């Protein structure tokens, strides 16, 4: 070690303080300046997620993926790139597939947000896409799977009876590093059969 490097233990204190550490629904504390310029948005907003209305305190610059995962604790939605380059964070906004990492939460006030956790029927039964993906053993590592499931569900809302090529186009915004594309496509085609 170079003696010129003068470091110290950079620990402020090791006493755990529950009040300082947790807040509300998640484990995220918002600390951005609370003073607000005239005309800027209110931070406390209502979101409609999987059919339920939730009140959440959201930073102006916060992405929907962050709100879902850290404030609403819906961890099925994955963050794999956080740059709109993979699709693991795909959710539906009013039945249309979107990357939740690339939307501001403040932009979806009043819209219906559906995450992978919201696809089951009211009686708890699996969505046809979920059922078909199990039957075709579509997932491998599973990290892209929630995004694939939601993208496929959105595709089948828009086009309940896609050709294999249309399904391929429809799912093309979801990257799978395991290369399970063929099995996912089989799953979409089977799901379309289950629906019809």
């Amino acid at each position, binding site marked *: *070690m170079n003696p010129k*490097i003068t*470091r*110290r*233990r*950079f*620990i*402020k*204190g*090791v*006493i*755990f303080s529950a009040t300082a*550490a947790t807040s509300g629904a*998640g*484990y*995220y*504390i918002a*600390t951005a300046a609370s003073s607000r310029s005239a005309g800027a948005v209110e931070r406390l907003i209502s979101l409609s997620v999987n059919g339920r209305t939730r009140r959440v305190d959201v930073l102006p610059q916060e992405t929907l993926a962050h709100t879902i995962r850290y404030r609403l604790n*819906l*961890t*099925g939605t*994955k*963050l*794999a*790139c*956080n*740059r709109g*380059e*993979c699709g693991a964070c795909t959710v539906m906004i009013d039945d249309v597939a979107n990357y939740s990492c690339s939307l501001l939460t403040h932009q979806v006030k009043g819209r219906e947000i559906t995450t992978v*956790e919201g696809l089951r029927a009211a009686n708890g039964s*699996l969505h046809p*896409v*979920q059922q078909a*993906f*199990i039957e075709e*053993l*579509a*997932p*491998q*590592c*599973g*990290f*892209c*799977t*929630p995004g694939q*499931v939601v993208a496929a569900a959105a595709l089948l809302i828009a086009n309940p009876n896609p050709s*294999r090529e249309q399904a391929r*186009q429809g*799912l*093309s915004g979801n*990257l*799978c*590093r*395991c*290369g*399970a*594309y*063929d*099995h*996912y496509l089989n799953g979409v085609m089977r799901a379309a059969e289950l629906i019809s």
Partner: protein
Amino acid sequence: MTFMHIGKDFVPPDVEGKVTGDAKYAEDFRREGMVFARLLTSPMPSGRIVSIDASAALRMDGVVGIITADDLPASKPPANPMLASEYVTYIGQPILAVAATSEHIAENALEQIKVEFERREFVVDPLDSLVEGGPDAYPEGNAMVLTAPEGDENTALVGVIKPVKWPAEEIEKLRRGEEPDGTFTAGWEYGELEAEFAKCDVIVEESFVTAGTPHQCMEPRTSMVYWENGKCYFHASTQSQSAVNNGLAAMLGIPPEDLVVINENTGGGFGSKGTSYPTMGVSGNLARLLNRPVQLRITREEEFYIGIGRPGMQGWIKTGLMADGKVAAVDLIIISDGGPTGQNSASSSAGHVSVLFQPNAMRLRNIPVFTNTTPRGAQRGPGQNEMAAVLAPIMDKAANQLGMDRVAFRRLNAPHSDSGIYQAQSPVTSAFMAEAIDKGAALFDWQAKVSQPRRRGNKIVGVGVGQGYHGAGGYGYDGLVKIHPSGKIDIHSGVGNLGTYSYAATSRTVAEVLQCSWENCEIIRARTDNHLPHSSVQGGSNTIFTHSRANYVAAMDALNKLKEIAAAEFGGTVEEYSIGDERVFRTDDSTKGMTYAQAAQKAIELGGQYSGQQYPEDLNPITQRAVAGVAGTGLIGVAKDNLDRKGTPPGQIIGFMEIEVDIDTGKIEVTDYLAVADCGTVMHPQGFSQQMNGGGVWGIGMAAYERHVYDPQNGLPANVGLYQSKLPTMLDVPVHMASAAADIPDPFNPMGGRGIGEPSQGCAVAAMTSAIADALDGHLFNRVPVTPDMIVNHVAQNSYGPKPLKLNTF
């Protein structure tokens, strides 16, 4: 053999959670009081840390602490340290981590930390360092001169770093495709090389280069750690429950029994999460320092930096064929891009050649050179698959010069069950490559494909064939099975869960042996405190062969105990007992017997070996602790795999591909792909198909898309994100991919199976490079990936394009 379970599809227990979002990965766990850590990483490829000033960050509300190398044990180059101490050797190298009550605050705190550096010279291309006068990646030099033999892919090299330089003219020779003369630090040889070359009718000499590639697993290696009552609870992203424990415990300075590794799911590993890795030590030690739970989320960019990558290589190969097409001799030189950690897969590259073409004599000369690029490690078929990529069209060229069909040429040279491999020409358990080739050539209709018209408008059809190989198994792991007094059967497995489902497929061996219903079995896994035995890593294509053996011996132990307990009750010897319908009974009178549940109750009463109070002495200490944890709760079957062994179980595949090359745009479309595996019994058809197709996608990625790109002026990597890393998308791979198997059981696995996770990439990349050369009248790029600009330049006969053998910089 007719199986009850093996070879049939089933629903692995973790699949439903994956499609519903219930499946938890390390970053999905929360805990009361959890804080968020973020890394501060090196902005320069090489330098010395002069000072760190974190005072402003520490004054921020919500910031709870910072960890630096001062808080951690020292490490010695080229080992990859948890945090950089004095020197940084690559852009993105972690220097410190800051923890705060929100990730947002931690990010803001990073901007308030000032680190002063002194810049050092750096290098991103091995040849630029190897040439006389070239810069060295470390102050001490650019190469590891070994002082102990090289181990396998996950073993650290032992040696000293020294400068090694070659005369500029030798580097230029290599760039021209000629054999260079320079210092090597590793290698091997067998047979009479010169004598065998003398027998040859055709000799082909080529230089080649393969790109390094990031793993870019979908799940970045986030961890969440907390300490409780002196134990460390570690939510990890890992390929194995067993292989990670000792290394991680050492990084934390605790005995392995005080470490609980929790890993229900892992979002991809591909070799990069086979053992413990440095940032695990950062989050684990930080959680202890702060005395509160820490989530260290790794970003995509950081995953590029620290997620290790496949080493690129620059090399030269000379291949000699005799008149009948037999490969007589191969001479191979490989300069590996070791990054700052010196990973070197050259022996495996040479091994690929030795297995699949069976030369009578072969030599490898090798030097790994350090560069200031990302750390390197094992990636899917390390060594073998990148060799497959460049070897296929070179071997095609040799076969074509003899006028020999490319498939016939491969069949002639294919390994058989009595073949030798690698330097030692050591045995394989079995090999049926010729049978796989015959099956594939027929299914693909090879003869018709190569005879078809090759022009389709602006496109030219290319037809290719290539092979993949990886040693697909090991020996000596432990299995642990418990039959509950309820009759339920637990199969304990420390195999990781990457989504190959081999943890489950190998567990079905137990149901097979005990002839019980699969629904009555539960796989106990995911946490080391679930009492997991010393298990095969999920990697290296190893699990299927290795852990079905381990589960087999444990199940056989349980079966024997069932019979012993029944014989004690109903008389006679164990040989006089049979099983069926989850009962053990006298073969001559099935009314004399008991259910598994009754036998398990009896085992508890008997104690000793029957319920795990006693166990074999040759069990691994991990398994010994696991058995102790379940002792007395049921009938325990536990054993080390001491079954007969014979050398390496070869996972090998032949791939056939048809492509269309658009000569205007340089774009390649894969129009047909088939791979046929020699992998013994297919134990899980859907899982088999997944690995064959997934490997196919990886092969296409290696052949045409993926590579590290660095700027030689400042050492910056260009492909830190997913879009720049160009992983193949759904629209870059064929609509359908087909696979099949020779389906001849391996005699050294009781279920007959061997793994194919890695050669499935090698055969695809080889088939694709073979097809590209075929489409372009035999033109050899001797480089992967082959990108559209290279094809456009070739067609236009541009003299531009990459300088020969440039690595990381095109």
